[in-house]
């Protein structure tokens, strides 16, 4: 089969425009398309045309936009009604999603609609010597890695873990084609309705999107002490994470929980404070590029996965670290 392989990216956007994870997914699609001699299509719902260029700069050849502002908060049902026919008519070899709440449910639904395979939360995509595509994805929250090979004509559905496929910088000289699709879904076909979208207050970033996570365990001793983590996260422009017992105690929200029954994350830097390192927690954060552990107990399992450790009381050390970073980064925070 010598037809050009097309990679379709479903671009996720929010109130503030295209989400950073969408650029990562476009970037990953570009690398894959280059290895296959293929092209990258990007589909965006509810975006303005002016924003399309940035997708081209990150690697899209064709950008398809549905400008309808109603699609800024799109239900699973609406997304399927738009995407399924498009995939059927354009026959992409692979469809790439960001492994977000929306991306994952859309990919899973589409796999059933199209009767094709799915790999959720991929952390690598490679093309082998015979042109075969291989992906890896964590299972058991990262306690093991599953290696998969794509077989058949497609479309193969892949959702990509956030923070893993970051490119260095966009190429502003790239040129692509931007096309406006005129699509409307009659309301009477729809049963799901979004009543509201609520932003979490007080938090900087979602843990799955953050490059730096400052995370606390029972060693933080009480809810109020998480302020120390928030201070450091603010200076590092990161997010605050927590271990399961902390969430079970009601000190932090579930969306902060890192681990096998919480969120699995892959930041550049993970600072574990007062976290002993239960096996479920280690599963959720061990893929971080650099891990720092601060714990009173020199024998805590967290030190076995850490790159750097300080044995001591996190409550005492955290303000010093925040101060030192603030000084070093010359930040006014």
């Amino acid at each position, binding site marked *: 089969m010598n037809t050009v392989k097309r990679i379709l990216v479903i671009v996720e956007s929010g109130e503030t425009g295209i989400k950073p994870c969408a650029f990562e997914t476009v970037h990953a699609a570009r690398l894959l398309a280059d290895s296959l001699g293929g092209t990258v299509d990007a589909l965006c719902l509810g975006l303005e045309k002016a924003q399309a260029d940035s997708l081209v700069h990150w690697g899209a050849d064709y950008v398809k936009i549905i400008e309808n502002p109603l699609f800024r*908060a799109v*239900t*699973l049902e609406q997304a399927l009604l738009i995407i399924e026919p498009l995939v059927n008519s354009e026959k992409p070899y692979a469809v790439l999603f960001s492994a977000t*709440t929306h991306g*994952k*449910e859309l990919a*899973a*639904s589409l796999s*059933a609609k199209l009767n*094709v*395979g*799915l790999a*959720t939360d991929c952390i690598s995509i490679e093309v082998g010597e015979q042109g075969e595509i291989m*992906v890896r994805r964590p*299972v*058991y929250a990262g*306690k*093991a*890695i*599953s*290696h*998969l090979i794509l*077989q*058949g*004509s*497609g*479309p*193969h559905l892949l959702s990509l873990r956030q923070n893993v496929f970051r490119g260095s910088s966009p190429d502003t000289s790239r040129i692509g084609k931007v096309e406006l699709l005129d699509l409307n879904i009659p309301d009477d076909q729809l049963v*799901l309705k*979004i*009543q*509201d979208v*609520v*932003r*979490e207050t007080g*938090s900087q970033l*979602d843990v799955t*999107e953050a*490059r730096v996570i400052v995370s606390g365990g029972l060693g933080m001793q009480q809810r109020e002490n998480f302020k120390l983590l928030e201070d450091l996260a603010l200076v590092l422009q990161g997010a605050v994470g927590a271990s399961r017992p902390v969430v079970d105690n009601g000190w932090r929200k*579930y*969306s902060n929980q890192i681990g*096998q029954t919480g969120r699995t994350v892959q930041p550049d830097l993970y600072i574990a404070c007062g976290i002993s390192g239960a*096996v479920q927690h280690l599963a959720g954060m*061990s*893929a971080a*590029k*650099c891990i720092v552990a601060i714990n009173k107990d*020199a024998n805590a399992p967290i*030190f076995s*996965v850490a*790159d*750097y*450790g*300080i044995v*001591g009381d996190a409550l*005492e*050390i955290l303000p010093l*670290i925040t101060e*030192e970073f603030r000084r*070093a980064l010359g930040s006014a925070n």
Partner: protein
Amino acid sequence: MRILVCVKQVIDTAARIELKDHKVDGAGLARVLNPYDEFALEEALRIRERNPETEVILVSLGPECFRDTLRAGLAMGADRAVHLLDPLFAEVDSLTTAYLLGQAATSLGFDLIFCGRQAVDDDMAQIGPAVAVYLQIPCITVLTKLEFSEDWDRVVATRQIEGGSEIIESPLPVLCTCQKGLNQPRLPSLKGIMAAKKKEIEIIDANALAFAPNERCAPAATLNQTRLSLPDRRGKRKIIDGSTNDAVMQLVKILREQEKVV
């Protein structure tokens, strides 16, 4: 109201995963009800407390040993259980699993289906939405709150999205996938455990679902697992000694200049 709760048996999250011939060596590891399915079951039980006309049925597809997990769910309070059990189900892929769960759901009848947000073994998060597609019903994933209209025919669901939450309204029937934050699952009481022994676990085989593996057309694209590996991470394990002040200064310097992560 009839609520179906789809459940799976998984390896206990406290277990370390070891491999044997590129597969998970599950021998001797404890098996539990998938933690996310506990939230699904708990939510169903709470609805039954508010609406006594409710029946809660567990549905699971898996080998003989899944019976223990169904028993555990019955001990928590489910009314009865349905076990999709047949040698022909042994090697089915996840879409076929979803298809079969959908077939079983159709024959049982339902107003509401709950699943866990994902099974904590394969972490695919595929079954719930796929079952909804096969049943042609709406699907809301990763619920943290569920409310009903007065006449119990509509739901308003709050679910987690990155950096916030979304509030979605749907008529029944609907399939919801559940997660932590939704409720606090109960522990089975002694009375519950005793009562569970008398509750029915109905077995549904391939024949009852009119399932012939060859009849389902093969997917046009598949992702086949070639092997499993263990993550290769080992920390550098450098303990920074010295006075607290010195250690902190050194750490910040390393993170900025050597690791370049800040």
